[in-house]
């Protein structure tokens, strides 16, 4: 039988059972569905393409603004105008960084450009504040601004080149998108033929700025004042873990290795608890230097709540005393899923030292301490020389809003954005049904910070 005959025969047999029409109908349905899906897919593609273009042109626009305002800030002479210009730099670099993150390019491909924008934003903000306080910018500040301006010009030129490429159709976002999809751990080299890598190339030299900001290089590795003592071995660390939990409470301790590159080099352990199911492991990190507990966390089902917050707080304080942390005071608490998380701050000569922070997680069913976190304390704790405040409490009060009903007043040391510390008068008070914490600088009487206390069913939040 020839092929032709076969097909004919097949057709005849289908006809016999009226199958031919059924198959034709099915094919038509599939074709219509296919067409519909194709159109939808094109639509989605267009939507994302538009979103990418939008982000890109916004980015170009804001980088241009950053460049212009940085140029202006270099020649501005009055503090008022300087502050205004720098505030514009701050706003526009912030927006530029938002739009940069939306482009479909791998994370490490643009991380230096991102860092540049973050630092420009923060640095200009801190300089603007200087201007607002009527401080003149130092020669060093101006040099930094000039350097930042040079980089912004480069970034602007690269982006203009890219914009040309996009207009000529050399770059399609969809293509970049596919490559970016696989994982954050993708190599940029895929794109090396594309002009996008130019951004990163130009920024390879951007080493970062040295200034007093949260994003500055030298502060990402602060001196850890509370991390005292001599180095210990893993065996000694294991002993500390054993004593912490008590032999009767766990089955075995497994080492999770030593994290040499961590913020605080430490030995990690995972502890199989008794009375737990197979997945009930607690984890703990002990610092190599001094054998401090850096971190402890244990997750288990929480039963009925049997103890109240005051009792839990007492348990926490006793626990801290037992571990050698005296003079701690609770400052903030939050209740979630039957667990109370309490922040404790160090107290020296009746001054609350907020940077020396230890957090505990306390189960409200049995009062067991389920978690401990001491990095704040280890980073900043030391015996401080607390100067007598230059501003008396009464003088500080004069700077407060008249309507504030004060409920407590004391001295406190608070951390600043720039990881320094300031001595302040802390006033807790109420205005129009809102509770506030107001900090008046004890050195110069200026308002240092205002926090709003939000009472939620879960605890008090300060913001």
């Amino acid at each position, binding site marked *: 039988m020839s092929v032709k005959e076969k097909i004919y025969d097949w057709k005849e047999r289908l006809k016999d059972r*009226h199958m031919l*029409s*059924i198959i034709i*109908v*099915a094919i038509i*349905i599939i074709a219509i569905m296919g067409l519909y899906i194709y159109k939808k897919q094109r639509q989605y593609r267009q939507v994302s393409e538009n979103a990418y273009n939008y982000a890109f042109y916004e980015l170009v626009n804001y980088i241009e603004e950053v460049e212009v305002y940085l140029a202006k800030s270099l020649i501005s002479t009055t503090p008022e105008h300087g502050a205004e210009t720098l505030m514009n730099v701050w706003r526009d670099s*912030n927006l530029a*960084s*938002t739009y940069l*993150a*939306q*482009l479909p*390019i*791998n*994370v*490490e491909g643009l*991380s*230096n450009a*991102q*860092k540049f924008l*973050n*630092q420009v934003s923060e640095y200009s903000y801190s300089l603007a504040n200087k201007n607002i306080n009527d401080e003149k910018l130092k020669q060093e500040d101006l040099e930094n601004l000039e350097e930042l301006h040079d980089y912004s010009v480069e970034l602007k030129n690269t982006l203009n080149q890219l914009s040309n490429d996009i207009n000529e159709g050399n770059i399609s976002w969809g293509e970049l*998108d596919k490559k*970016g*999809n*696989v*994982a*954050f*751990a*993708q*190599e940029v080299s895929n794109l090396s033929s594309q002009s996008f890598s130019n951004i990163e190339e130009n920024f390879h030299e951007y080493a*970062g700025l040295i200034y007093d900001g*949260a994003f500055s290089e030298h502060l990402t590795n602060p001196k850890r004042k509370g991390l005292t003592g001599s180095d210990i071995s893993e065996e000694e660390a294991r002993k500390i873990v054993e004593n912490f939990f008590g032999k009767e409470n766990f089955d075995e301790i497994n080492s*999770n*290795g030593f*994290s040499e*590159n*961590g*913020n*605080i080099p*430490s030995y*990690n352990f995972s502890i199989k608890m008794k009375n737990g199911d197979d*997945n009930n*492991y607690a*984890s703990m*990190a002990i610092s190599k230097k001094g054998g401090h507990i*850096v*971190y402890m*966390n244990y*997750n288990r089902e929480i039963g009925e709540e049997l103890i109240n917050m005051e009792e839990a707080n007492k348990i926490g304080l006793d626990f801290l005393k037992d571990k050698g942390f005296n003079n701690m005071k609770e400052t903030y608490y939050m209740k*979630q*899923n039957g*667990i109370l*998380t309490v922040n404790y701050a160090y107290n020296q000569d009746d001054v609350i030292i907020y940077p020396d922070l230890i*957090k505990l997680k306390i189960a409200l069913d049995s009062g067991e301490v389920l*978690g401990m*976190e001491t*990095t704040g304390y280890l980073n900043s704790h030391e015996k401080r020389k607390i100067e007598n405040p230059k501003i008396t409490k009464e003088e500080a009060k004069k700077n407060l809003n008249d309507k504030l009903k004060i409920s407590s007043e004391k001295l406190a040391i608070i951390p600043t954005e720039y990881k320094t510390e300031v001595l302040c008068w802390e006033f807790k008070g109420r205005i129009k049904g809102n509770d506030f914490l107001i900090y008046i600088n004890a050195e110069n009487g200026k308002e240092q910070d205002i926090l709003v206390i939000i009472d939620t*069913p*879960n605890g008090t939040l300060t913001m």
Partner: protein
Amino acid sequence: MRNNVRKVIKFLFISVIILFLILIIAYKNRIYAADKGRTPDTQLLARAINGEARGESYEGQVAVGAVILNRVKHPNFPNTIAGVIYESGAFTAVSDGQINVPISEDSTVYKAAEDAMNGWDPTNGAIYYFNPDTATNSWIWSRPLTVRIGKHRFCK
């Protein structure tokens, strides 16, 4: 004869339409675990953890949350939780939609997200992590390792 054909065609059409309806209803009724008293940031963080590490141990889940929060504080990354999570190509769970998988009732990801938000960081300051079995990139191996938790290597 003709009648039979019509019947079959009718049946086909109706079954296709019913199939579509079922799909639409199933799609619209996707159930998300109830969120009580959680801030949008915690919810988003929990969903990212769910997408990236729901098969990991509790510590591994807190660790993923901690990496996201470490990035928020790091100059090389956006400064908000949403910015970090939705940064293009940053997390596989975002690219492949795993982040939208509903959180199961008995999941610990909310607790893990809350612990991370409260400052617990088992990664000792890591800003990257990867699964050595599936990582395709050699660059990531050059990053200094801080700690291994479950399937993930955490690094700076």
